[in-house]
C-alpha cells in the first residue's frame, strides 16, 4: 500500500437520535431492490444523514455488510480513490478487496484490479453495500473509466450507493431502463410541511402554530440545513412567532440570515472561536488551541456538538470533528469579510501545528493557503525522505505540481527530492532537464541557493548520478546505467547509505540484465547492507529475493539459503509488536521452498509453501501469487501430478505481475517442461515454435532457461523418435550452453547442463563422455548438496549414477544420490508426504463443492459459474460459503491455493 489511509474516512456517521424518522424515504431503496442508489442533491438536504439512517436501520431486507467511504478532494487521485474503496470493501467483507489492493499497488490496470474484486464479490454468500459519500468531491475523468467498469458489472451481491451534489458522469441508462436504479433528488429530500412541523417540534420542543410552520416551510423551501438553523434560532426565544415573521419577510440568502441569527446570539468567545477555526477542514482540541491561541478547544468542541452547533464528529472517540459544510462556508465568508488580514496568520498557525504533529500533508496545504510558498517548500523539502520511505510517492508527486515554479528555481535539495517523486511514478520526461538545472544551482555560491539543511547539498552530486543511472536503465542502456551508478557510489558520502544502496541496486539490476551475475550479486549485497542501515526493510526483502535467485544460478545453494534466512530474520525483527508480518515475508518463504526443493527436501519445500499461504495476501509482494503457484506446480510435477501442475501454471499466468527484474524463468518455459515430462511433445514443440527457439540459436544468459527447456524437449523427442541428426544438434546446443554458463560462472546452470549432457551422451552411446559430464555435475553438486537435478532426470540418470558408484566407491554423496534417484530406492510414493496429515480436512468437500471449487480457480464470475454448473447463483453462493468454512479461508484465491495444497484438485473427478 503506497497510501497512508485516513481512518476517519471509513467512519460511518452515527444516525443521531434526535433526528426525524422519514419513513417515506427510509424504506425506499431496499424495497425496490436497486443495484445502484443515487442520492443527488445540493448541500444541506440531509443526504449523509439519510444514508446513515438507511444503513443503521435497513428495512425489508436482511442486514448487509456496509463499506463506507467519505470521499474528499484528495480522492481525485485514482490511486487514492481506489485504495479507499477497496480497503473499505476488504474491511466490510474480508477477502474481497485484498487481491485488488495488491494489484493496485503493483500498478496494474484498473480493469484487472476490479475484475479481481468483482470475481470475489460475485460468489459471496452475504450482500454488501458500498457507500461513496460526497462523490462530487472525487469525481473526475481519472476515476470515471473504473467506475463505469464497476457499474456495468455490478454483481447481484453488491449494491452501490452514491451520495453527491452533482450528477455523476456514469453510464446509468441501462440500470435506469431495467429499473435497477433508485434516484433521490432535492425534490424528494425536501421536508414536506408535515415533516417540517414534526422536525421543528422535536428539535425546538415548541408547539408552533400551523401558520408559523407553513411560513418557515415556504421561506426555506423544505431545505433541511436552513430548517436546522432556524430551529437553533428558535430555541430559548420568548417570541418565536415574531422571529418567524421577521425571517419570512426578509429576502436575504437563507443561510446568511440564520447563521447571523445564531452567531449573534453566541457569547463573544464562541463567535471568535468559530471564526478562528473556520479555516480548518477538521478540528481537534489541541489544533483549535494552536490556531485560536486559546486553551479550551476540546471543551468548546464538545459543547458545540452538545448544542448541535453544526459540528460533525469524525470518530467514535470524539477527538476529531468537522464543521457542517454549509456552516463552514458561511463562517469563512465572515472571516474573510471581517478580518481578512488574519486569515494568512491562522493558516500559518495551523500549518505549524500539523508540522509539529507529524502531518506534513496538512501542514503543506495550510502553508500554501497562507500564501507562504517558501514555508511550504521548506516543509516539503524536509518531509520527502520519510514519505519516500513509507512509499507515499503520490503525495510527493502532487506537491511538485502545487509548489509555484518560483520557489523551485533556487532550491537544489528540494529539486533533487522531487525528482525522486517523478521517477517513482514513472515520469521520466523532463527529468534530465531538472537534473541539469540542479547541476547549475550547484555551481553557484552556497549563499545564492535556498536550502533547509546545507549539509544536504553534499549529497546532491551522488543523487544526480544515481538518477541518471536510473534514467539510463529505463532507456534500455544498462551499460550507461552501470557507469553512472559507479559514479554515484564514488560520489556518495560515507553516511549517505540510501543513495549508495540505491545506486548499487541499480548497478546490480543493470548487471543482471546483461548477464554479469558476479557484478549483479555484488551490487545487490551492497544495496542490502545500506538499505538495512536506513531501515528500508521492505526493499531489503525485494533485493534479497533477487540476490537468492542469482545465487542459485551461480550454484551457491547454501549462500542463497543464508541470504533468505537473514532477510526473514530482519523482517521478523522489524515486525511491529503484535502487528502483521512484513510484506515480502511470504516471498522469502517461497524462495526458501525452492532451495529445499533443490536439496530434494520435498516436505520442507511443501511446509514453506504452506507457511507462506497461511500468512495471507498481505504478507506477499505483488508477484507472490504467481511465484507461489509456480513453486507448488514444481512440487506437484515432481510428485507426478502433471495435470495439476499445468493447472497451477495456467493460474500463475493469470495472476502474473511483472517487475523490473529480467524474466529469466518465464512461466511458459516451465509449462513446456511439464508438458515434456507428461509426454505431450507436440504441445511442447509448439511452445518452442511460438517462442522462436531453435537448437542453433545464439545462447545467452537471459534465454538460458528456455534453451535448457528446449534441450529437455529434444532429449524426449529423441527417445520417442530416435534420429542421429537431432542428437548431434542437441549435443552442440548443450556444448554452447556449457561454454556460456562456465564463462559466466553460473555453476547452477552448469550443473543442470552437465546432467543433460550425460543423458545425451548416453543416448548417443558415448559412455565415457557421459560419465565425464556426470562427474563434473557431481563435483559441483556435492559441496552444497544439490540433489533434485539428479532425481528429476529419471531412471536413465539413476543408471549412470549406479555406474559412478563403481568408480567412486568411497563417495557418500554419490551413494546418497543413487539412493534418492534410484527408481526402486526411494519411489515417489514412499517419499515423505508432501503435506503433513494434520492438514486433511475434518469435514470433506462434497462432489458438488469440488466442482464449484474447481471453477473458483478459473476467471469466471459467480453468474458464469452458475451457468457452467447449470445451477442458480444462490446455489453457487451457498456452496462457496461452505467451501470457505471447510477450508478456513475467506476468498476465492485462498480457497483455490488451499485446495491445491491439500491435493483436493489433483485428479479430475470421475464422471
Amino acid at each position, binding site marked *: 500500500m503506497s497510501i497512508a489511509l485516513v481512518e476517519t474516512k471509513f467512519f460511518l456517521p452515527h444516525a443521531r437520535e434526535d433526528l426525524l424518522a422519514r419513513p417515506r424515504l427510509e424504506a425506499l431503496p431496499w424495497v425496490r431492490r436497486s443495484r445502484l442508489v443515487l442520492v443527488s442533491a445540493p*448541500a*444541506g*438536504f440531509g443526504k449523509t444523514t439519510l444514508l446513515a439512517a438507511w444503513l443503521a436501520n435497513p428495512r425489508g431486507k436482511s442486514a448487509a455488510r456496509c463499506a463506507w467511504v467519505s470521499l474528499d478532494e484528495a480522492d481525485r487521485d485514482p490511486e487514492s480513490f481506489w485504495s479507499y474503496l477497496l480497503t473499505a470493501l476488504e474491511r466490510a467483507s474480508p477477502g474481497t478487496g485484498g487481491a485488488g489492493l495488491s494489484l493496485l499497488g503493483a500498478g496494474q490496470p484498473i480493469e484487472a484490479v476490479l475484475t479481481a474484486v468483482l470475481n470475489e464479490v460475485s460468489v459471496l454468500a452475504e450482500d454488501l453495500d458500498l457507500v461513496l459519500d460526497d462523490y462530487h468531491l472525487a469525481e473526475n475523468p481519472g476515476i470515471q473509466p473504473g467506475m463505469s467498469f464497476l457499474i456495468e458489472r455490478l454483481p447481484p451481491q453488491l449494491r452501490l450507493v452514491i451520495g453527491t451534489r*452533482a450528477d455523476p458522469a456514469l453510464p446509468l441508462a441501462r440500470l435506469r431502463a431495467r429499473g435497477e436504479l433508485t434516484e433521490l433528488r432535492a425534490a424528494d429530500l425536501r421536508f414536506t410541511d408535515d415533516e417540517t412541523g414534526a422536525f421543528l417540534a422535536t428539535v425546538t420542543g415548541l408547539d408552533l402554530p400551523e401558520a408559523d410552520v407553513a411560513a418557515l416551510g415556504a421561506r426555506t423551501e423544505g431545505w433541511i440545513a436552513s430548517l436546522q438553523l432556524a430551529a437553533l434560532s428558535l430555541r430559548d426565544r420568548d417570541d418565536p412567532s415574531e422571529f418567524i415573521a421577521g425571517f419570512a419577510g426578509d429576502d*436575504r*440568502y437563507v443561510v446568511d440570515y440564520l447563521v447571523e441569527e445564531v452567531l449573534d446570539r453566541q457569547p463573544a468567545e464562541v463567535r471568535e472561536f468559530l471564526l478562528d477555526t473556520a479555516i480548518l477542514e477538521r478540528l481537534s482540541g489541541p489544533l483549535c488551541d494552536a490556531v485560536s491561541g486559546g486553551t479550551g478547544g476540546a471543551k468548546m468542541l464538545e459543547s458545540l456538538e452538545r448544542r448541535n452547533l453544526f459540528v460533525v464528529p469524525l470518530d467514535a472517540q470524539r477527538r476529531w470533528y468537522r464543521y457542517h459544510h454549509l456552516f463552514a*462556508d458561511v463562517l469563512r465568508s465572515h472571516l474573510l469579510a471581517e478580518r481578512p488580514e488574519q486569515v494568512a496568520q491562522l493558516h500559518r498557525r495551523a500549518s505549524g501545528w500539523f508540522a509539529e504533529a507529524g502531518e506534513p500533508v496538512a501542514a503543506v496545504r495550510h502553508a500554501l493557503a497562507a500564501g507562504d510558498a517558501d514555508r511550504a517548500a521548506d516543509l516539503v523539502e524536509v518531509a520527502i525522505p520519510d514519505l519516500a520511505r513509507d512509499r507515499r510517492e503520490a503525495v510527493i508527486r502532487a506537491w511538485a505540481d502545487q509548489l509555484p515554479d518560483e520557489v523551485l528555481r533556487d532550491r537544489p535539495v528540494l529539486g533533487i527530492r522531487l525528482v525522486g517523486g517523478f521517477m517513482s511514478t514513472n515520469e521520466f520526461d523532463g527529468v534530465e532537464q531538472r537534473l541539469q538545472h540542479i547541476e547549475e544551482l550547484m555551481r553557484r555560491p552556497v549563499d545564492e541557493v535556498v536550502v533547509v539543511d546545507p549539509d544536504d547539498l553534499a549529497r546532491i552530486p551522488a543523487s544526480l548520478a544515481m538518477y541518471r543511472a536510473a534514467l539510463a536503465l529505463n532507456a534500455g542502456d544498462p551499460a550507461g546505467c552501470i557507469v553512472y551508478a559507479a559514479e554515484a557510489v564514488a560520489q556518495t558520502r560515507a553516511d549517505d547509505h540510501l543513495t549508495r544502496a540505491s545506486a548499487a541496486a541499480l548497478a546490480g539490476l543493470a548487471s543482471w540484465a546483461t548477464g554479469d551475475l558476479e557484478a549483479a550479486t555484488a551490487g545487490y549485497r551492497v544495496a542490502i547492507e545500506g538499505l538495512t542501515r536506513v531501515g528500508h526493510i521492505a526493499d531489503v526483502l525485494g533485493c534479497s529475493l533477487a540476490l537468492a535467485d542469482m545465487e542459485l544460478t551461480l550454484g551457491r545453494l547454501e549462500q542463497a539459503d543464508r541470504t533468505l534466512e537473514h532477510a526473514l530474520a530482519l523482517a521478523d525483527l522489524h515486525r511491529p509488536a503484535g502487528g502483521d508480518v512484513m510484506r515480502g515475508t511470504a516471498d522469502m518463504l517461497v524462495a526458501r521452498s525452492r532451495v529445499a526443493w533443490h536439496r530434494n527436501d520435498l516436505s520442507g519445500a511443501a511446509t514453506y509453501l504452506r507457511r507462506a499461504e497461511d500468512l495471507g495476501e498481505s504478507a506477499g509482494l505483488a508477484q507472490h501469487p504467481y511465484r507461489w503457484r509456480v513453486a507448488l506446480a514444481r512440487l506437484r510435477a515432481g510428485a507426478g501430478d502433471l495435470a495439476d501442475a499445468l493447472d497451477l501454471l495456467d493460474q500463475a499466468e493469470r495472476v502474473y505481475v511483472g517487475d523490473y527484474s529480467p524474466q529469466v524463468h518465464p512461466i511458459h518455459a516451465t509449462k513446456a517442461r511439464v508438458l515434456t515430462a507428461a509426454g505431450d511433445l507436440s504441445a511442447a514443440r509448439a511452445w518452442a515454435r511460438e517462442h522462436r527457439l531453435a537448437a542453433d540459436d545464439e545462447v545467452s544468459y537471459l534465454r538460458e532457461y528456455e534453451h535448457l527447456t528446449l534441450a529437455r524437449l529434444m532429449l524426449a523427442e529423441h527417445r520417442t523418435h530416435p534420429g542421429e541428426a537431432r542428437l548431434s544438434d542437441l549435443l552442440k546446443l548443450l556444448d554452447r550452453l556449457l561454454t556460456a554458463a562456465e564463462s559466466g560462472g553460473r555453476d547452477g546452470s552448469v550443473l543442470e547442463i552437465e546432467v543433460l549432457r550425460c543423458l545425451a551422451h548416453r543416448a548417443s552411446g558415448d559412455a565415457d563422455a557421459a560419465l565425464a559430464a556426470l562427474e563434473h555435475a557431481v563435483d559441483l553438486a556435492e559441496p552444497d548438496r544439490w540433489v533434485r537435478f539428479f532425481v528429476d532426470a529419471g531412471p536413465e540418470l539413476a543408471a549412470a549414477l549406479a555406474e559412478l558408484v563403481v568408480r567412486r566407491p568411497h563417495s557418500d554423496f554419490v551413494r546418497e544420490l543413487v539412493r534418492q534417484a534410484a527408481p526402486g530406492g526411494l519411489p515417489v510414493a514412499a517419499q515423505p508426504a508432501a503435506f503433513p496429515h494434520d492438514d486433511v480436512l475434518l469435514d470433506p468437500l462434497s462432489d458438488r463443492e469440488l466442482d464449484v471449487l474447481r471453477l473458483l480457480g478459473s476467471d469466471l464470475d459467480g453468474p458464469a459459474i452458475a451457468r457452467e454448473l447449470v445451477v442458480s447463483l444462490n446455489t453457487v453462493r451457498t456452496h462457496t460459503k461452505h467451501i470457505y468454512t471447510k477450508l478456513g479461508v475467506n476468498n476465492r484465491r485462498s480457497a483455490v491455493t488451499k485446495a491445491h495444497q491439500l491435493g483436493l484438485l489433483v485428479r479430475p473427478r470421475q464422471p
Partner: protein
Amino acid sequence: MKTPEGLARSVCRVNSDPSDDDAGWYEISIRGRLEERWAAWFEGMAIDAGQAGQTIIRGPVVDQAALHGLLARLRDLGIPLVEVRQIPAPSAPDDLR
C-alpha cells in the same frame, strides 16, 4: 516537468489577461439576496442587487475551470442559479466595484 494540466494551470495564473480566448467577464444571476460580505469569498467579484429579489455576481474569470469552480461554490452554498452569461469586458473595470 509538470503534467499538461499543471502546466496549463500555471500558465493561466500568469496569463490572466481577460482578452484571452478562455478568459472573460461573466455575470451570474442567483435567486435571493446575497450580502456584499461574500465578495471576498468569491475572490473579489462584485456583488449587486438585481431585479426581483435576485443577486448579480459580476467579474473577470480567468478560464472555464475557474468559472466552474465559481459555480461549484454557489452549488455548495445551496444557492439556486438563475442565469450565467458572458459579458463584454468593461473599459474601466474599476467603475464596477
